[in-house]
């Protein structure tokens, strides 16, 4: 019987079984940021423990950095305190820190891959639930709490239960105007926000085979929104080509050996899965969330669900709660809802290809009056390349604000926040109540192109109509 990538990577990193039956699992690569690590370093100090494998922890600052001021001290003293604490903790413990002055700072899930730190067949943990992003490379990557950040710092391991594996096959060609973001929103809509609890998701099929690394990262990134702590794609030539020549990628003779080893981690063709789901790519539509969980999504042509459509009382309660919060009427079309803010960025969709795709279409368009539209590169590396390509000028000409790298309005721990009950078309990953910084702020998740279409029309729109996809021959 063959093994899945999950089982192979798990077995290679399983240290021993613990008394309660959990596995002591080696965490090969540990990524940290300013929000969930300072308490962990504090716990280490309290117990007089040191960082056991400092060369396997990498830090950056992303959640609290302002995207419109670069000179310290920042106007928010709490944010300034957090960045300084991280600097101090990294310096005292010999941890590599991609600080704001390195040209390599950014959202932790964008920095890891672009530096070549994220590699196939590895285990990666970070105090952030979107860590599954790194699974795009065939790594087993997942979010952990701060006490576990402490455990990794002190022992390079955590206590974990083995997951089941659900294979999700997406086959065929996506229709024009349908992107990786729509694929994952569609999957979560189909399987629910808790469908993945207890599972690792293995994404496969011809659609994934053809995806670029950045598209695979977009899908893996939102695994947790479907309840799956881990999501991954088997490594292939696309993976190896992406990693070739990156700062932390193996060099010289070590490169060939690494590629051979990476290939060996891919799921065997004769392995079995705990569950298999098959999806036809041609059925996926540009998808927009109307509610307050990422599972509450519909195709752009569909109507918002009515309370009476839900089969059970608890689902009817959920729909009613979401409609009330979002100020929407069940049964009405989603298209045409007026927006106030457009946000393109985040660890889901803040990579170069996202900006290249948007730039291609917004050229010649203008952001609608009354809409604030911001574009936030996921890292300083992304920002630099985008600026070298002149994308920033295209965005600014179209009326978008081009900002500095960070998490920004995805979770609004920096000054980028919704005000009051503003409605935001957002390329991020969560539409929870209050997620974007205002307790009554409203979020609709969608692909970057759909955000751009909403920005230039001032309302939720079908990007295929706005930008004339069919004629552009995408």
């Amino acid at each position, binding site marked *: 019987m063959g093994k899945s990538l999950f089982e192979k990577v798990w077995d*290679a990193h399983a240290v021993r079984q613990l008394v309660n039956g959990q596995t002591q699992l080696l965490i090969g690569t540990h990524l940290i940021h300013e929000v969930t690590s300072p308490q962990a370093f504090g716990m280490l100090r309290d117990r007089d423990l040191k960082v056991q494998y400092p060369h396997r922890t990498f830090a950056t600052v992303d959640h609290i950095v302002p995207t419109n001021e670069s000179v310290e001290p920042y106007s928010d003293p709490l944010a300034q305190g957090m960045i300084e604490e991280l600097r101090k903790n990294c310096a005292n413990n010999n941890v590599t820190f991609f600080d704001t002055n390195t040209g390599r700072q950014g959202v932790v899930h964008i920095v890891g891959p672009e530096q070549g730190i994220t590699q196939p067949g590895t285990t990666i943990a970070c105090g952030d639930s979107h860590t599954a992003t790194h699974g795009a490379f065939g790594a087993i990557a997942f979010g952990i709490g701060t006490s576990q950040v402490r455990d990794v710092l002190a022992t390079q391991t955590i206590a974990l239960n083995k997951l089941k594996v659900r294979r999700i096959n997406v086959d065929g060609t996506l229709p024009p105007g349908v992107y990786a973001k729509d694929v994952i929103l569609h999957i979560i809509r189909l399987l629910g926000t808790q469908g993945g609890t207890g599972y690792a998701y293995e994404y496969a099929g011809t659609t994934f085979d053809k995806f670029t690394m950045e598209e695979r990262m977009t899908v893996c990134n939102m695994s947790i929104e479907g309840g799956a702590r881990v999501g991954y794609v088997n490594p292939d030539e696309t993976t190896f080509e992406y990693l070739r020549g990156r700062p932390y990628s193996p060099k010289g003779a070590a490169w060939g050996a690494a590629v051979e080893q990476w290939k060996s981690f891919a799921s065997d063709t004769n392995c079995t899965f705990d569950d298999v789901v098959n999806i036809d790519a041609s059925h996926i539509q540009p998808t927009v969330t109307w509610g307050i969980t990422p599972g509450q999504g519909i195709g752009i042509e569909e109507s918002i669900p009515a309370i009476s459509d839900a089969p059970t009382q608890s689902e009817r309660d959920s729909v009613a709660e979401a409609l009330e919060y979002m100020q929407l009427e069940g049964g009405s079309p989603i298209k045409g809802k007026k927006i106030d803010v457009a946000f393109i960025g985040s660890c889901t969709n803040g990579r170069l290809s996202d900006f290249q795709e948007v730039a291609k279409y917004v050229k010649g368009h203008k952001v609608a009056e009354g809409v604030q539209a911001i574009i936030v590169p996921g890292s300083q590396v992304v920002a630099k390349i985008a600026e070298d390509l002149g994308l920033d000028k295209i965005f600014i000409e179209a009326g978008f604000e081009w900002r500095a790298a960070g998490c920004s309005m995805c979770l609004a721990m920096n000054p980028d926040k919704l005000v009051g009950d503003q409605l935001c078309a957002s390329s991020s990953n969560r539409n929870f109540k209050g997620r974007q910084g205002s307790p009554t702020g409203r979020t609709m998740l969608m692909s970057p192109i759909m955000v751009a279409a909403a920005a230039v029309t001032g309302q939720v729109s079908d990007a295929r109509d706005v930008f004339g996809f069919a004629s552009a021959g995408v």
Partner: protein
Amino acid sequence: MSSTPIKKVTGKGVFVPGDDIDTDRIIPARFMKCITFDGLGEYLFHDVRKTESGEDKQHNLNDPRFAQASILVSGNNFGCGSSREHAPQSILRAGYNAVIAGSFAEIFFGNSTNLGVVCVIASDADREIIASAIEAHPELEITIDLENHKIFYGGQSVPCEIKQGARDSLLSGNYDPLDELLEGADEVSKTAGALPYMQA
């Protein structure tokens, strides 16, 4: 760190209705600009409890009848979303030490167990009964009995579930795994030694 075994949790309850109570709702991100967990209890469910101008909303969590509660009762998929340990930390620091829900998001469940916050699953019907009982008698004492997989209230009981490993850890007082992980240091270095990418 070996801690006191947790076999039972007894206290008064409060019902927080709704499925998919996410970690942003438990502790909004803007309150995480801190370098310790001290003081997080104050912000538990902040936006559920307060209006934008800072006044109390009408909610069980603001109702003086439930002010003594130490057990939260809620819906399905409790704790979904972020991996922030700030969520169970704020629950603990606000004086709650157990959650009864229909199901839990995985990362939240693990984070809570590590802190000794007991998370047990009860059916929709049973949680409804408990919620009604609390509503009728806020002073009602509830006991979560981990050894017997039961929730006792007012002379009655309903079954509850918890993952075996978490239950064992709580019962034996080994829910914080750090000491046991530290003991494995030699084996960790062997496992690491076999992986090329782990070499300095």
